[in-house]
C-alpha cells in the first residue's frame, strides 16, 4: 500500500524536543522529534478533548498535550494521564499515527503503511521553508525556467542548483528550498519570488 508522501518542513527547523504543526492533504498534523531524535507525525487532535497536540511539549520520548498533560509515546499510545497518576491508560487511547521520515534534510509524511518513495535530493543543502499566499499556478508563474518533477521544482540561481519541494495546501503553498549556492542569496531570492507569486494573485 502506498499513500502520497508530502514534504512537511526541513530537519533543521525541528530540533530535538520540538513539536510543530504540519499537514497531509486536508488532515492537520503534529510533527515532533523526541529527545533521542525520533520523528513522529500524528493527527493534530488529542484523543481526550480535541486540543491540538502541536501546542504540546516534548519530554524525553513523549509528547504531552498542553491542555491536561496527557502524555503519548512515540507509538502514539497514551502513557500517562496526570489527573489519575496511578492509572495505566487503556490501550484504546492512542493518537492517530502517520508515517514520518526525513531524507536529505527534508521531513516527509504519508499515511501509515506507505512504501517509502522519495525524490532524489542528494547533493543539495537545506535553505529554508517559506509559505506563499497563492495557488500552485501563481507560484509556477513566478518560477520561469524551473522544471517540475512531481513535488520538486528544479532550477538554477546564478549557476547554482536550486530545488524547491512544494507542499500544496490549496489557498497557500509551502516551499521547502534546498540548493548548492549561498544560502543568504537563495533566501533573499525566495522573498522576491513570493512577492511575485502573490502579485499574480492580486492581478
Amino acid at each position: 500500500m502506498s499513500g502520497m508522501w508530502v514534504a512537511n518542513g526541513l530537519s533543521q527547523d525541528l530540533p530535538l524536543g520540538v513539536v510543530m504543526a504540519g499537514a497531509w492533504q486536508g488532515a492537520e498534523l503534529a510533527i515532533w522529534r523526541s529527545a533521542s531524535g525520533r520523528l513522529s507525525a500524528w493527527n493534530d487532535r488529542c484523543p481526550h478533548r480535541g486540543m491540538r497536540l502541536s501546542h504540546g511539549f516534548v519530554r524525553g520520548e513523549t509528547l504531552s498535550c498542553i491542555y491536561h498533560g496527557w502524555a503519548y509515546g512515540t507509538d502514539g499510545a497514551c502513557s500517562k494521564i496526570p489527573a489519575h497518576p496511578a492509572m495505566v491508560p487503556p490501550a484504546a487511547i492512542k493518537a492517530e499515527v502517520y508515517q514520518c521520515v526525513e531524507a536529505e534534510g527534508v521531513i516527509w509524511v504519508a499515511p501509515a503503511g506507505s512504501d517509502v518513495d522519495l525524490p532524489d535530493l542528494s547533493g543539495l543543502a537545506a535553505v529554508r521553508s517559506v509559505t506563499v499566499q497563492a495557488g500552485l499556478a501563481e507560484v509556477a508563474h513566478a518560477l520561469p525556467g524551473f522544471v517540475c518533477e512531481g513535488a520538486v521544482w528544479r532550477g538554477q540561481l546564478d549557476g547554482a542548483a536550486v530545488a524547491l519541494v512544494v507542499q500544496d495546501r490549496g489557498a497557500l503553498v509551502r516551499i521547502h528550498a534546498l540548493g548548492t549556492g549561498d544560502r543568504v542569496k537563495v533566501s533573499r531570492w525566495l522573498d522576491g519570488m513570493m512577492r511575485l507569486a502573490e502579485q499574480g494573485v492580486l492581478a
Partner: protein
Amino acid sequence: MIPQAVLNEWYPVAMIALVGPRPGRQTQLLGSDIAVFLEDGQIVVQGAKGQRLAVTLRYGHVWACPGTPAHDLFPIPEADQPGRRLVDCGVVRVKCSPLRAVENFLDIAHFPFVHTDVLGAEPHTEVGRYEVQIREDSDEVWATKVHFYQPQAAKSAAGGIVTEYMYRVAAPTAAVLYKTCPNQPDAWDVIGIFVQPLTEEFCEVWPWMALFDDTTPQADLIQFQQMIFLQDRSILENQIPRLLPLDPGKEIPTQADLTSIAYRRWLKRKGLTYGAQMVAA
C-alpha cells in the same frame, strides 16, 4: 433551524454598567443581529426586525431571551448576601463554541498545565473522586466535593493547600463555581462565567464574581480573573472540532471528566444543541 428549547433560554448580552443610548451595543445572539441600548431609562434588546426581546437585569448583566422564556433566570442567592462584593470583569471574545467555553470552566484537570503555579502545578495533578448529579428539582448540573491541590491559594498562604470546589451549570451557557475562601473557611467565593453565543462557533464571555474581600483593589480582582480566562482562551481556540461533540466518538473522557460528561448529557437530553456537534466526526 434553531431548536425552540434553545430560543427559550436566557443569554447574557451586555454588562449593565456599559449600556448606553442608541445605537448602543451592536452584537449577535444565536446568529442574529441584536442591539442593546438605553431608551427612556430602560435597557432594551432589539432584534434585527425591530422586535423587542424579553429582558432580565441580573448579576451585573443584561440577559435576553429570543423566544418565550421557559422559566425565570436562574437564582444565585449569594449575589444578595450582605458583605459580598460583586465584580463585573468585562467581555472577552473567543473563537469557539459557547458550549466549549462552559465545559472548560467546569474542568479542573487543566489547572497545572494552563494556569501553572496559580491554580495548579505539577506534580500535584491528581483529580480525586467527586460527585456529580443532574438535580431534577432545579434542572441543573452540579459537581460537589471536588478537591484539588492549589500551589498558591491566596497571596498570604505559604505553600499549597487542598482547595474544595463546587460547580454548577445553571443555564446552557452559564455556569457558577464555588470555591473555599482562604480568608473565611465557612464561606465560598462565587465565580460565574456567562457566555453569549454569537454563533455556534463564536462567543463572548463575561466572567463575574461575588467575593468576601474588602481589601483587594477592584483592578486587581478584575485582572486576576482576566488573566485566568485569557490563559484558557488560547486552548479554546485550538480544540478540534470547534463545536462540542455530544456523542461519544473521538473524545475519550476519564473519571476526572464526570462534570463534562454530565453537562453533555444534560444538553443532549434538553435538546440544547446550539454549538454542539451531533454526529461524531
